[in-house]
C-alpha cells in the first residue's frame, strides 16, 4: 500500500502567486482569490510510520515548509483548516520520466540504507488548491491549462469531496506490461496496399492495433522483402523495425542524398560537402577544418591544443506534442552530439532557436476529426519550449549565450525547435588524435547512463513524416539532465583521458539499433545480447528495447581489459554502465534474446542496402502584386511599431532565464549595453587561461522563401557571417552549419525550392570561403489535421534554412558590442541600401495593418564580392580598435539596427539619410529595406580619418552623430525630418511585446 507525503509551504510562496497571474487570461479570472501549491510524494514501498516521518523531514526545509504524512484516515491534511474550493492534482502518466522521484528515491536509499526494487517507486505530483467561487467547468478549464494529457494525469475534487475522501486519492502510476516478450515474423509477401499500410502505420499486433510508423515506402519494403527472400525467410519484427530506423529519412537523409534532376550525386554531396572540399583545397595550409560531416558534430581547430565542435539539431515533431519535453530532450540530446564527437568533447555552449506562431492569437487545431486530439495553443508551445531549454541547459551547467526566436503563422501546426552545442576537446588524447575513434572487434558494447523504457519509441520514423492523428504519443519524452550530467562528467572529465574506451556515440534517434550498428561499422560487426539491457520496468518487447530512444544514454566500446577500471569509475560516479554485447568482425549485425537469434542481417545491407530513389523537381515561379504605397513624410509611428514586431522585439525574458555565464568564459553577452538589447552574436572563452575566444552567430529568413529560396539561402548565409563579422569575427576563420527545415519534401515544387537553396549554399559558402562543417535536415514539417470547424487543413512551414556561424577570435578584447558608447561619435552605414523590400518585415507589418497580404518581389540579393571586401575591412578596423559599436543590418533594416545601437547605449542621435537618395526613392524604404551586406557602426571623431582610410574601396555613408540627449531625429532622403522620438519611447516599444512573459 502506497503512502502519500504532502509538503506544504508555510510562508509566502511565489510559485502560487505566479501561477495565479498565468490564469489571468480566463474570463472568470477575477473570481480566483488565492492558490496554494502542495508537493506530493506517493511512496510505493513499505516503511514504518517512524521511517516515513524521518523521510518527510528530509524532503523539506522546516523553516519554510511543513510535511504531512498521510498514513491513515486520522492523519491531518494540509488543507483541512484552510478554505478553498477546488483541488487539482497533476502527476505523470505511467512510464513518464519523473526526475524528482529519482532524487527522492536516492535520498531515501542513502538515508535508510535500503534499496528500491524494480517494482517499488516514488511518484511525484502537485496539487493546486484554488479558492474562488468557480463552477466545476471553470475549474476544469484551469486544470486543462495546467497539464498535458499526453504525459500527465489530472484529478479534480471539490472541497467537500476532499474532506469527505480525506484528501486526494492514492494513485500509483506504475507501468504494468504483460511480461511475455515475443519475437514475431512479418510476412512481406502481401499486396502493395498492405505493404503501404505496414510502412505507414507499422507492424500489426495480434489484436489488430498497429505499432506505429515505420515510414518505409513501397520501394524500401520490397527491397527488404527481396533481401530476406535471399536468406530464405521472413524478417522478424525487430529486424524490420531496426532497418526502418537505420533507413529513416531522419537517419539517412535520402532526400539530400539521392539524385535529383541532373544532380546525380544528390544535393548534399554536390552542394554542401562539395563547397567544403573546394574551400579546404583553396585554403591549403590555412585550412582549419579537422572533422567535417562524418561525426556527431563538426570540428575546427581552436588553437594548437584544442578543437572546437559544433552541431545544431532540430526537435520539431516532439515539441509540437509536448513542447517542454521536446525542447529539453532537444538540448540534452544535442549535448550528446558533443559528448559523442571523437572520443568525447566537453559541451561549452548551447544554442537555441524557436520558430513559432503568434502566441497572442488562439487558433484551435485538431489532429483528428470531430475536434479530437486538440493541438496545444501557440502560447503554450512557446512557453513550453522556452522552459524546456531552460531546464535542460541550466541544469547541465552549460552556458546558453546565443539564440533567437522567429515568428510566422505557418509554424502553428509544427513549431521548429533548434538546439545546438559547441564542444571543446584536446587535439590529442594520450598521444593520439582525439577525433579518431575505432571500436575494435572483441571490445565490449557498453551502454552508459539512463535505462530503457517505452519512451521515445518511433521517434526517428515519426519525425520523418507529417504530424497527424497517427503520430505516436510514446515518441514524446522528458529529459533527465542530471543523469546526463553525471554521465557527461564521468566520461569527458575522467574516463576519456584514462583511455578506458576506444569509441563512443550517442543513443539518439533509433536508440541502440542505430548507435550500435553505426559503431559496428568501425569493427565490421556486432553481437548484442538484448536481455542484458537494463530496463526501467519489466515487460518490454525485444524490438522495443532495440529501438527505444530513452534519453541520457551513450554507447561505448570498451576493451575487455579496461572494463573493470571503467565499471569501477562509473560506479563511483553514480553512473550505470552495462555490457550488452561485443563488437565483432563478422560483417553481420546479430542480436540475440535469451539465447535465441532474433536479428541476423548483413552490415552492408543494413547500412547501404537502401535503394536509390531519383527525384524530379519542378520550378515554381511567383509573381506577387507590387504594393502601391503612398509617400510618407512622417515615419515615427511605423518606426516604433516595427520595434514591437514579434521578429524584432526584445526577448530578454528568455535570455535572462538561460544561464549564459556559467563556466566563466562569457566575453560578449547576449544582452548588450545599458539598454540590454538582444544581440545577434555572442563571444565566449572556452579555455579560461587563453586569450582566444569563440564567436557564435546565426541567421534565417523564412519569409524570403515565398519569393525565391536561392536568394533566401544567400541572405541567410550572408547575414550569419556578417552578424559575426560585425562583432569582431574573422571572415577568414569562420565555419558554418546548415539546418534545412522543409515541408512536403515529396512534392516536385518543394524539391525545386530545396535544390535552389542548396545551390546558393554552395555558391556563397565558396565565395566567402566559409566551409560547412555539419548540418541536419528535417524534411516534413507539415501539419495535417482539422480546423475549428472540423474541416481538413494542411499547414506547411515556410521553407526555413538556419545558417549558424562559428569562428575563433584571436584576442577576446578585440570584439565590439552593439551599443553606442559616447556622445559625439559618428554614425556610419557600411554598404549600399537598395529598394529591396520583398518579403521584408516592413511589408509584413503593412500586411497586418492593411489586412491585405503584401509580399512584393524585390527580394534582397547578395553581392558576395563587394560584401567580402567590406567584411575584411571591418575585421581590420576592429582589430585596430577603430570601431566603438557595431550592429549588423538584418530584419527590419537600417532603422532597427540604428535603434538597437541607440537603445543599447541609451543615447540619442541626429541622423540624415540624404546620402541614400541615389539608390532609394522613399523614406520608408531607406529605413526598412533589408538589403544585405550592411553594418551600422559608430566611430570616435578622433578615429574618423583612420577609419575612413581603413574603409577605402567600400561604399560607406556617414549618416550622423550620437548625441547626449536621448532624442532621436532622422532626416529623410529629402533632408526633412521623418522620425522624431526618444530612446525611452523606443525602448518602451521594443520591450512591450513580451512584457509579462
Amino acid at each position: 500500500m502506497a503512502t502519500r507525503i504532502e509538503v506544504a509551504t508555510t510562508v509566502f510562496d511565489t510559485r502560487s502567486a505566479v501561477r495565479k497571474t498565468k490564469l489571468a487570461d480566463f474570463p472568470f479570472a477575477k473570481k480566483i482569490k488565492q492558490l496554494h501549491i502542495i508537493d506530493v510524494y506517493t511512496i510505493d514501498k513499505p516503511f514504518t510510520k517512524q521511517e516515513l516521518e524521518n523521510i518527510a523531514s528530509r524532503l523539506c526545509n522546516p523553516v519554510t515548509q511543513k510535511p504531512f504524512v498521510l498514513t491513515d484516515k486520522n492523519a491531518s491534511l494540509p488543507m483541512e483548516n484552510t478554505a478553498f474550493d477546488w483541488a487539482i492534482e497533476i502527476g505523470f502518466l505511467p512510464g513518464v520520466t519523473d526526475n524528482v522521484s529519482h532524487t527522492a528515491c536516492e535520498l531515501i536509499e542513502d538515508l535508510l540504507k535500503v534499496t528500491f526494487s524494480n517494482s517499488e517507486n516514488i511518484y511525484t505530483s502537485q496539487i493546486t488548491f484554488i479558492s474562488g467561487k468557480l463552477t466545476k467547468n471553470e475549474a476544469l478549464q484551469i486544470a486543462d491549462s495546467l497539464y498535458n494529457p499526453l504525459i500527465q494525469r489530472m484529478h479534480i475534487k471539490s472541497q467537500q469531496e476532499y474532506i469527505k475522501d480525506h484528501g486526494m486519492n492514492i494513485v500509483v502510476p506504475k507501468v504494468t506490461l504483460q511480461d511475455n516478450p515475443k519475437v514475431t515474423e512479418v510476412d512481406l509477401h502481401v499486396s502493395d496496399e498492405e505493404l503501404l499500410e505496414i510502412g505507414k502505420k507499422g507492424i500489426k499486433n495480434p489484436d489488430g492495433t498497429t505499432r506505429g510508423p515505420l515510414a518505409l515506402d513501397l520501394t524500401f519494403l520490397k527491397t527488404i522483402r527481396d533481401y530476406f527472400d535471399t536468406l530464405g525467410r521472413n524478417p522478424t519484427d525487430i529486424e524490420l523495425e531496426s532497418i526502418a530506423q537505420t533507413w529513416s529519412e531522419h537517419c539517412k537523409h535520402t532526400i539530400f542524398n539521392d539524385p535529383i534532376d541532373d544532380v546525380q550525386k544528390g544535393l548534399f554531396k554536390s552542394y554542401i560537402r562539395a563547397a567544403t572540399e573546394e574551400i579546404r583545397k583553396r585554403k591549403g595550409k590555412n585550412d582549419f577544418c579537422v572533422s567535417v560531416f562524418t561525426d556527431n558534430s563538426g570540428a575546427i581547430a581552436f588553437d594548437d591544443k584544442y578543437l572546437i565542435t559544433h552541431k545544431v539539431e532540430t526537435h520539431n515533431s516532439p515539441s509540437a506534442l509536448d513542447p517542454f519535453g521536446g525542447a529539453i530532450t532537444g538540448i540534452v540530446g544535442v549535448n550528446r552530439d558533443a559528448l559523442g564527437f571523437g572520443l568525447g568533447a566537453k559541451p561549452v555552449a548551447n544554442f537555441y532557436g524557436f520558430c513559432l506562431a503568434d502566441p497572442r492569437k488562439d487558433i484551435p487545431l485538431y489532429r483528428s476529426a470531430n475536434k479530437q486530439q486538440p493541438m496545444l495553443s501557440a502560447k503554450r508551445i512557446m512557453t513550453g519550449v522556452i522552459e524546456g531549454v531552460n531546464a535542460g541547459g541550466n541544469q547541465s551547467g552549460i552556458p546558453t549565450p546565443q539564440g533567437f526566436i522567429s515568428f510566422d503563422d505557418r509554424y502553428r501546426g509544427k513549431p521548429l525547435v533548434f538546439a545546438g552545442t559547441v564542444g571543446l576537446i584536446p587535439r590529442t588524447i594520450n598521444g593520439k588524435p582525439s577525433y579518431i575513434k575505432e571500436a575494435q572487434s572483441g571490445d565490449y558494447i557498453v551502454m552508459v547512463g539512463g535505462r530503457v523504457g517505452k519512451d521515445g519509441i518511433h521517434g526517428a520514423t515519426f519525425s520523418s513524416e507529417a504530424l497527424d492523428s497517427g503520430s505516436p504519443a510514446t515518441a514524446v519524452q522528458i529529459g533527465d539532465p542530471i543523469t546526463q550530467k553525471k554521465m557527461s562528467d564521468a566520461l569527458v572529465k575522467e574516463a576519456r583521458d584514462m583511455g578506458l574506451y576506444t569509441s563512443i556515440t550517442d543513443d539518439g534517434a533509433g536508440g541502440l539499433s542505430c548507435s550500435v550498428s553505426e559503431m559496428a561499422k568501425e569493427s565490421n560487426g556486432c553481437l548484442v545480447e538484448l536481455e542484458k539491457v537494463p530496463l526501467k520496468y519489466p515487460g518490454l518487447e525485444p524490438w522495443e528495447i532495440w529501438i527505444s530512444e530513452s534519453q541520457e544514454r551513450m554507447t561505448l566500446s570498451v576493451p575487455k581489459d579496461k572494463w573493470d577500471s571503467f565499471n569501477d569509475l562509473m560506479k563511483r560516479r553514480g553512473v550505470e554502465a552495462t555490457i550488452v554485447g561485443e563488437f565483432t568482425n563478422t560483417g553481420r549485425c546479430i542480436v540475440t534474446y535469451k539465447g535465441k537469434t532474433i536479428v541476423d542481417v548483413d552490415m552492408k545491407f543494413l547500412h547501404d542496402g537502401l535503394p536509390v530513389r531519383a527525384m524530379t523537381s519542378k520550378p515554381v515561379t511567383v509573381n506577387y502584386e507590387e504594393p502601391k504605397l503612398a509617400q510618407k513624410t512622417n515615419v515615427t509611428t511605423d518606426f516604433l511599431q516595427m520595434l514591437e514586431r514579434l521578429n524584432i522585439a526584445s526577448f530578454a525574458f528568455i535570455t535572462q532565464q538561460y544561464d549564459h555565464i556559467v563556466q566563466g568564459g562569457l566575453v560578449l553577452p547576449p544582452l548588450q549595453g545599458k539598454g540590454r538589447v538582444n544581440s545577434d552574436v555572442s563571444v565566449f572563452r572556452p579555455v579560461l587561461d587563453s586569450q582566444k575566444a569563440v564567436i557564435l552567430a546565426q541567421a534565417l529568413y523564412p519569409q524570403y522563401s515565398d519569393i525565391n529560396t536561392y536568394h533566401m539561402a544567400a541572405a541567410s548565409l550572408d547575414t550569419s557571417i556578417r552578424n559575426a563579422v560585425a562583432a569582431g569575427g574573422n571572415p577568414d576563420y569562420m565555419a558554418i552549419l546548415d539546418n534545412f527545415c522543409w515541408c512536403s519534401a515529396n512534392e516536385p515544387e518543394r524539391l525545386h525550392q530545396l535544390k535552389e537553396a542548396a545551390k546558393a549554399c554552395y555558391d556563397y559558402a565558396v565565395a566567402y570561403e566559409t566551409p560547412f562543417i555539419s548540418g541536419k535536415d528535417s524534411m516534413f514539417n507539415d501539419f495535417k489535421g482539422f480546423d475549428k470547424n472540423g474541416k481538413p487543413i494542411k499547414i506547411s512551414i515556410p521553407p526555413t534554412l538556419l545558417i549558424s556561424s562559428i569562428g575563433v577570435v584571436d584576442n577576446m578584447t578585440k570584439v565590439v558590442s552593439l551599443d553606442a558608447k559616447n556622445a559625439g561619435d559618428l554614425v556610419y552605414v557600411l554598404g549600399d541600401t537598395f529598394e529591396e523590400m520583398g518579403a521584408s518585415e516592413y511589408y509584413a507589418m503593412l500586411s497586418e495593418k492593411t489586412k491585405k497580404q503584401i509580399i512584393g518581389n524585390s527580394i534582397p540579393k547578395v553581392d558576395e564580392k563587394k560584401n567580402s571586401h567590406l567584411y575584411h575591412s571591418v575585421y581590420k578596423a576592429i582589430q585596430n580598435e577603430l570601431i566603438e559599436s557595431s550592429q549588423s543590418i538584418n530584419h527590419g533594416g537600417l532603422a532597427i539596427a540604428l535603434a538597437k545601437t541607440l537603445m543599447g547605449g541609451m543615447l540619442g542621435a541626429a541622423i540624415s539619410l540624404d546620402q541614400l537618395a541615389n539608390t532609394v526613392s522613399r523614406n520608408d524604404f531607406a529605413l526598412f529595406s533589408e538589403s544585405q551586406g550592411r553594418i551600422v557602426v559608430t566611430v570616435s571623431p578622433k578615429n574618423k580619418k583612420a577609419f575612413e582610410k581603413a574603409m577605402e574601396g567600400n561604399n560607406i555613408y556617414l549618416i550622423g552623430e550620437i548625441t547626449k540627449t536621448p532624442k532621436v531625429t532622422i532626416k529623410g532622403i529629402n533632408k526633412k525630418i521623418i522620425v522624431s522620438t526618444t530612446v525611452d519611447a523606443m525602448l518602451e516599444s521594443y520591450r512591450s511585446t513580451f512584457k509579462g512573459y
Partner: protein
Amino acid sequence: MKPKVIVFSGYGFNCEEETKFAFEAAGGVADIVHVNDVISGAHSLKNYQILAFGGGFAYGDDTGAGNAYANKMKNHLWEDLIKFIESDKLILGICNGFQVLMNLGLVPAINKQYGAREMGLMPNETPRYTVRFIDLKVESKKSPWYKGMKEFSLPVANGEGRLFASKEVMEIINKHDLIGARYFKGEMSTYLNLPANPNGSIEDIASITDETGRVMGLMPHPERSMFFTQLPNWEILKEKYKKEGKEVPEFGPGMQIFKNGIAYFR
C-alpha cells in the same frame, strides 16, 4: 606552501572548474574531488585548508535546491565537516553551494549550533531562473572572506535565491554580525537600470556567515566576475582606462573573495 582547496563535485554541481581556476589564480592549489571519493575515504578533508561548494544544480534542485546534496553530506561526512570548521579552516558556498550550506545548517548556525536549519532559500519572486549583474555591500565585520571589501559587483544566476527567515532569526543574525553582504543599488544595477534586489530576498540579504565568519555562503557568483571581461560594461571601462593611461586589468572585482580565502593561510 600554497594553501590547498578542495572543490566538491558530483550529482550536478557544475562550477567546479572555474572555482578551481579562481582559487589557483588567487595563489592556492585546488583539487576537484567527487563527493563519493571523500565518502569512500579516497580523499580526506584533513589535507585541505579551504572547502568550497560551487554553483550548480545538485540533484536538479529536486526536493528543494541544495537539499538532497546536504542530506548526503549529513549522512556521511557530518563529523568531518564539524572537525574542519573547528580547526580554524574556511568553507565557501556559492549559489547552489550556499543552498547546500544552508540546508546543512552550517550557516547561520546561531550560537554555533551547527546542523539546525534556521533559514530557507526559496523560489525567486518571479520564480524563474534569473541571470544578471548585481552589486553587493559588505556587512560582515569579521568574515575573513570579506576582509577589506566594501562594495563590489558580480552576477546572480539562480532560481531559488530568495532568503527567508523568521523575525526572531532575523534579529539575531543582525545582532550577531552573521550577514555577509546585502544587495544595493550600486554601479551595475544603475548601469543596467535594474532593481538592486534581484529576487526579493529578505532585507536584501545575499550572503550569510556562521558565528566565526569562516563559513560563508552567498547567492551571487564571485567567480563570474573574476575576469575584467566578465563585466557587462568592460568595453566602456577599457576605453576609460586607456584614456587615463591605465593598464586594462586582467581580473575583476570577484577575485578578491578568493584572494581573501587564500590570504587567511598566509
